[in-house]
């Protein structure tokens, strides 16, 4: 029963940057525990859409509910939502002045306000989860890209969020490091986390996605389970896009 409860509801959302419309009439419902993979050409609004979910971007019109809380200008709501939503960026965005362990504890300590001992225990648990327990005392700049991205994932997980957002988490990585990050994401998916991933890693998508979403020109133009999405997509732009990507 809780499996089918909507945890994210995006209703007719528009987003303008000045005169430029980055999202137009986007609606999407994500159920608890569901994995949604978003793909589409550059500039189609994928990042904008997931950034609206934790209000790094403010939607212009329409409604957005996360975990039953509507995102409006209300600061309290925004922070409540952000505590439940983890975000992983293409450029990692680790805090360079903090050690790996401090990167992981700063959120729980300063936002959740748990005790230092608990925060450290939690940080070690999630470092274990992303397979780099031995790097706790290093600074981000001393790690490889793949390790940094796994630290970033662990940093989000330390807040014990109910939803994780990924914005092209492997695009900035050297090819040999992509899999170590995707493996962590697959394990996370299997643990039942609700996830929205923007990625062009179609092998990963095929494996974990419940829903595939294709965006073009600020609109969702195709939405289907992977079995349908990869074999007989209805939208011609989507078909073209998939052909291009799967060729490589």
């Amino acid at each position: 029963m809780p499996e089918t409860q909507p945890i994210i509801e995006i209703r007719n959302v528009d987003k303008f940057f000045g005169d430029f419309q980055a999202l137009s009439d986007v609606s999407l419902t994500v159920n608890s525990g569901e994995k949604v993979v978003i793909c589409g050409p550059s500039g189609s609004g994928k990042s904008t859409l997931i950034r609206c979910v934790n209000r790094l971007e403010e939607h212009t019109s329409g409604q957005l509910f996360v975990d039953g809380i509507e995102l409006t200008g209300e600061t309290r709501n925004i922070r409540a939502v952000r505590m439940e939503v983890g975000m992983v960026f293409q450029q990692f965005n680790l805090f360079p002045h903090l050690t790996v362990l401090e990167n992981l504890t700063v959120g729980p300590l300063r936002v959740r306000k748990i005790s230092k001992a608990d925060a450290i225990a939690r940080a070690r648990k999630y470092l274990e989860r992303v397979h780099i327990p031995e790097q706790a005392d290093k600074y981000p700049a001393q790690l490889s890209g793949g390790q940094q991205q796994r630290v970033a994932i662990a940093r989000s997980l330390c807040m014990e969020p109910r939803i994780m957002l990924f914005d092209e988490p492997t695009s900035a990585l050297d090819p040999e490091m992509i899999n170590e990050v995707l493996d962590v994401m697959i394990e996370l998916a299997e643990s039942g986390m609700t996830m929205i991933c923007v990625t062009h890693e179609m092998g990963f998508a095929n494996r974990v996605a419940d829903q595939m979403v294709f965006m073009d020109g600020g609109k969702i133009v195709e939405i289907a389970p992977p079995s349908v999405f990869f074999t007989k997509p209805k939208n011609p732009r989507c078909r073209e896009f998939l052909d291009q990507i799967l060729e490589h």
Partner: protein
Amino acid sequence: MNHGMRRLLKRLHWMDGLIVAVLVLFFGYVWVQIGDQLNYKWRWGLIPDYMFRYDEERERWVANLLVQGLITTIRICIYASILAVLLGIILGMARVAKNLTIRMLARTYLEFLRNIPPVVVIFIFFFFLSEQLIAALNIESWARGIARSENNGVWEFFFGDMRRFPSVISGVIVLALFESAFVGEIVRAGIEAIPRGQHEAARSLGMSWYAEMRYIILPQALKKVLPPLANQFISLIKDSAIISLISVQELTYKTVELVSTTRAIFEAWIATAAMYFVICFSLSMLFSYLERPRKSGAR
């Protein structure tokens, strides 16, 4: 003549000789003017006496006018720079605040300081702010009380003669307010140099604006602007001469006093200039030594 010396001489051009000759002639002319025309008697022997004197009562050497002034200058500069950094951080954050009113206020303050001569600013701060503050907090009589009491060693160590405390505090406040605007601009530049991704990562964790600034942005920003902040500290020492105008008994004020009692105009001002120079120049060398690139893995 050693090898290096000979090489140096070879590199000298006839132009260099000309420049040196002109300079020597100019200063020689000034020297002669002072000595002959003004009938000036050089009395360099006075200067050491006005730096230190032997106290018969206490039977030891104590600071005289110039060194007293120097110590006051150093005290005031240290306190003023601490206060200026605190105010400057607040001002720098206000300059990049989301709220328009806060941003405008910070901007107004900055433009006020940029477009009014420092001397005028100092008088305005003195009469409108620090005088009022000292009167309102009744600092005057409080300090007199401490000056009279027996166990005031700690206070005297930090603030010198406690009867002068109100004037020292005025100096600190006025100087700190004056410098805070420049510190604020340095801090703002530091905050703006932090990539957007850092703000976004902090916010995604649910951090409040305060937590984001306190734990993520400011530590990085301040570390970035340490070199310009250090230079600003040297500027502050030089700027501190201006508070002699509000009768704070620091080095410049004491020099004026010395000149009016001894008439040793040139010696006193040259000695004072030398003291400022030695302090500022050695700090400047120290900071560039600390800033020199180092091989290091961490951070």
